[in-house]
C-alpha cells in the first residue's frame, strides 16, 4: 500500500480556513455579549461615568454647584440637619442637602463621582498592573528576583503609611492632588494583589504546559503573558472589582489626612464617611452615596463574573 507518500490532506477539511482566527479575547467578548447580566453591569458603569462627565451640565440645570452652601436649607438648631423630610429633598435640592453647610447632595454626588471613579479606577488599574507584574515575576522566576521583590513587598506592606502620608503633606503640599492620591494609594496597596498573584504563580509555574512552553523556546515574558496570566485572570478580576470600594474608602481616608483632594471638592468616599454618623437622623444622606458605591461595585462584580465565565474556556463546567 502506501509508502509514506505525503500525507493525504483532505481539501474539505479546509473549508473553515477562511474564517478569521478568533483570538481568545475576541471570542471572550463574543461570549460576554451574550450574557444579559454583563450588559446590566456595563450599563450601570456607563451610567455613572456619563453622569460624572455631564456633571457641569446637570448641575447647571439643577441650579446648585457642588461647593455652593445653602444655609437656609438646614436647621442650625438641629445641629445643622436638613430642613424638611428625606434629607431635605425638594424642588430646589433634588436629592436633599448635606447637614451643617447645606451642600447640594445631587451636585456633590455627580462631582463626587468624577473624583471617586477617576481615582478608584486609575488606582485599581495601576495597582493591578504593578501588583500583577511584580507578583508574576517574583513567583515565576523565584530565587533572587523573588527575594528582592518579596522583601520589597514586605517593606511596602509594613510601611508606616499613615505617618508617611502626614509627612508627605509638608513636602508636596502643592502637588496635583488627584495624581498624588492615585500614586499614594497604589504605592501601599499593590503588594496585596502582588502576593496573591505570586502565590498562585508559584503553583502555576510547575504545570507541565508551562514547561512545554519553555521547551518550545517561548521567552519568559511571553510565558508570563500567555501561559500564566490567563490562568490568573479570574483572580485579577475579583481583585479589581472588590478593590473599588476599598479604594474609594481610602480616598476618603487620605483626604481626611489632608493628602487627598482639597475640601470642598466632594467625593463619594468623603460623603460616605461624613454621612455614616448621620445614619440615624439623616438616613438619606447616608444612603445615597452608599447606594451609588454599591451599584458601581455590583456592576463591576456582575461584569467581572460574566467576564470570568467568558474567559474560561470550560465555562466553569465540570
Amino acid at each position, binding site marked *: 500500500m502506501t509508502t509514506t507518500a505525503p500525507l493525504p490532506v483532505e481539501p474539505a477539511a479546509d473549508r473553515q480556513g477562511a474564517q478569521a482566527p478568533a483570538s481568545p479575547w475576541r471570542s471572550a467578548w463574543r461570549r460576554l455579549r451574550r450574557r444579559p447580566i454583563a450588559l446590566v453591569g456595563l450599563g450601570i458603569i456607563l451610567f455613572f461615568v456619563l453622569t460624572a462627565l455631564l456633571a457641569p451640565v446637570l448641575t447647571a440645570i439643577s441650579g446648585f454647584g457642588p*461647593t*455652593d*452652601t445653602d*444655609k437656609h436649607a*438646614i*436647621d*442650625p*438648631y*438641629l*445641629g*445643622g*440637619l436638613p430642613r424638611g423630610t428625606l434629607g431635605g429633598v425638594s424642588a430646589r435640592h433634588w436629592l436633599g442637602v448635606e*447637614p*451643617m*453647610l*447645606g451642600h447640594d447632595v445631587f451636585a456633590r454626588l455627580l462631582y463626587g463621582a468624577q473624583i471617586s471613579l477617576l481615582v478608584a479606577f486609575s488606582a485599581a488599574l495601576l495597582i493591578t498592573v504593578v501588583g500583577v507584574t511584580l507578583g508574576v515575576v517574583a513567583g515565576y522566576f523565584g530565587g533572587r528576583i523573588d527575594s528582592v521583590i518579596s522583601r520589597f513587598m514586605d517593606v511596602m506592606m509594613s510601611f508606616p503609611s499613615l505617618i508617611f502620608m*502626614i509627612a508627605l*503633606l*509638608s513636602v508636596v*503640599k502643592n502637588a496635583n492632588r488627584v495624581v498624588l492620591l492615585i500614586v499614594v494609594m497604589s504605592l501601599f496597596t499593590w503588594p496585596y494583589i502582588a502576593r496573591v498573584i505570586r502565590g498562585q504563580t508559584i503553583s502555576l509555574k510547575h504545570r507541565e504546559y508551562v514547561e512545554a512552553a519553555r521547551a518550545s523556546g517561548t521567552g519568559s515574558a511571553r510565558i508570563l503573558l500567555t501561559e500564566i496570566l490567563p490562568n490568573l485572570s479570574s483572580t485579577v478580576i475579583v481583585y479589581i472589582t472588590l478593590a473599588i470600594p476599598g479604594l474609594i474608602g481610602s480616598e476618603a481616608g487620605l*483626604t*481626611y*489626612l*489632608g493628602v487627598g483632594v*482639597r*475640601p*470642598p471638592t466632594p467625593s463619594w468616599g468623603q460623603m460616605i464617611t*461624613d454621612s455614616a*454618623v*448621620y445614619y*440615624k*437622623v*439623616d438616613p438619606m444622606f447616608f444612603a445615597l452615596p452608599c447606594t451609588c458605591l454599591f451599584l458601581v461595585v455590583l456592576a463591576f462584580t456582575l461584569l467581572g463574573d460574566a467576564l470570568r465565565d467568558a474567559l474560561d474556556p470550560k465555562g466553569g463546567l465540570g
Partner: protein
Amino acid sequence: SSSKSNDTSADNGKGITTAGDGIIGGTPVRGGTLHILSNQDFSQLDPTRNWVEPEMDFGLRTLYRTLTTFKAAPGATGLEIVPDLATDLGTPSDGAKTWTFHLKDGLKYEDGSPIVADDIKYNVERSFSSELPGGPDYAKQYLNAPAGYAGPLKGQRLGPEAIEVPDAKTIIFHLKRAVAEFGYTVTLPTFAPVPIAKEAGAGYSNHPFSSGPYKIDTYDRGKQLVLVRNTNWDPASDPVRKAYPDKIVVDQTLGSAGIADRLIADQGDDKDAIMYSDLTPAKVPDVITNPDVKSRLVSDNSNCTAMLNMDNSKAPFDNQKLRLAVEYAIDKEAFQSSVGGPALADIATTYLPPELTGGTSVDHFKIPVSGDLDKAKQLMAEAGLSGGLNTEITVSTGAKQQAEAIQASLKKININVTIDAVDPSVANSIIGDKNKQTGLAIVGWCPDYPSGATFLPMLFDSRIITDTGNQGNKSRFKDASVDAEMDRIATLSDVKAANDAWLALDSKIMDAAPAVPLTWQKKPLLVGSNIAGAFAHPVWSAEIDYATIGLKSVK
C-alpha cells in the same frame, strides 16, 4: 448657664443649653459607681504638668487639692474662689508682691501622712523642671526665682527669696511683680501638694499621691482608671467637693462616636455614665431631636474663643483694611452651623469671652450675624484689593467644614481661599512656623481663670512671638502700645480696674483686627439617666464639675 449665654446675637430660644437651673438630675445620693467614658488616656495627672481641660478639672476635683479653689456651682457663682487647703484666700503684702497662705489643720494624704507646706513648695519647684514640662507656667512667670533654676529633681530647692516655708503650715510666695489676682493663680494644680518622698519623676503621673477625696486604685493607662474613696480625706475641711460616688471608673478605650451612641442608648451601666470629651457635632442632631436624650445634655459656654487668625506679618494680611474687610465679610451664622449650630457655639463678637467681660458679651462692631458684604467690599476697595486675592487656610482635618464655611464667605468678596486640611498633630507646627504659616488659620484660646491676664497677652503680646514653634500670638500682631498697655494692667492691684482695662484693650485690638472672633464654643456633654448633680463649670471650659456629680439612685 443660661444667664450669660442668652444675650449673644444668635438666639438660643430653642433652649439647647442645659435645661433648668443648669444642674441636671438634682442632688445625688451617696454611693455607687460613676462611669466616665473617655476616648483617650489623660495626658497628665501629675499636678505639676496638668494644664489641659478636662484633666485639670478632673484632677483638681478628685485627686488633689490646691490652696484655693473655685466654688462648685454653675454660672457666675462658679467663678468665685474659696479657700481649699488654705484657711483663707491668701494675704497679699508688699503691694501684692508677697502672698502668704496658711494650711488648715489635720490635712492628710491618702496614706494618712500629713500635708505640709513644703510639699506645696516642692510641687511649685517641680514646675521649673524641664523633665516635667507642660504644666501651668504662672509660677515661673511670677515667682522671684533665680534665672536658670531647673527644678528640684536633681536636688536644688528654691531659696526663701522665692518661697518661704517658715513652718509646716505656712507658705509665703515672693513675686517678681505685683499680681493682684494671685489668689486665683493658686487654684492651678501647680499649687497642690506633692510629697518629696513620693517623687517618681515622669512616672508620678501614673500615681499622683492623693490629697483629694479619691485615690487611685488601679490605673491602666489608656484603658481604665479606677478611683476609690480616700478615707483620709476629711469632708469637713473641704468646702466644695461632695464626693458622692464610692467609686469612679474612667473607661478610656472607646471612640467618641461610640461613646455618644452608648449614652444615647442609655443602657445598663451606661445610665451611670457621663462623657468625658465633647459630643461630636455630627451627633448633636441625634441628641436634640430626642427630648429624652436632650434633657440629659449638659451644654454651656466654655468661654473659649474660636478665631479666624490672619498672619499680620506678611502680605496681604499686613493690610489692616483687608483684615477689617474679612471681619465684615464672614458669615458667622454659617460658621456657627459648621460647628454644630447654636447647640454647640455662640457667635463671638469680640475676643474676650463673656466670662471675662462680666458675664455679658460685648459686641464690638455690631455687624449682622451673616456679615455685611457691602461694607466688606468697600473696605476691600479701600485696601486697594477690590480685584480680590488668593490665600490659604490651615485647619486640622476635623475642621474641614469650618474652613468651607470661611471659604464660602470670603469668596463673596473675591478672596479665594484654598483649604489645607492637615493632621491635628501638625497643624500647630505649621501655623507656628514663620515660613509655613498660611494667610488664614482657625485658632482658639481659653482663659485659665477668670482674668484678662490669662487671655489677651497670650494672643496679642508681640514679645512672645517666635519664628518657629510659635504658640501664642499666632497672628504675629505687633503693636508696641498694646504691649505697653498689657504691662501696665499687669501691675494693677485692683482687680476691678484691671478688668475694665482689659475690656478697653480688647476694643483697641478689635479695631486693629488682627483676627476675627468667630464663636464661643460650648461644651456639649451627655450624661446617663441616673446621673445627678451634673452641671457645666464655667472655669473649666464648661466641663462637668466632678466635685458634685453623683448618681440619682444606687442599686
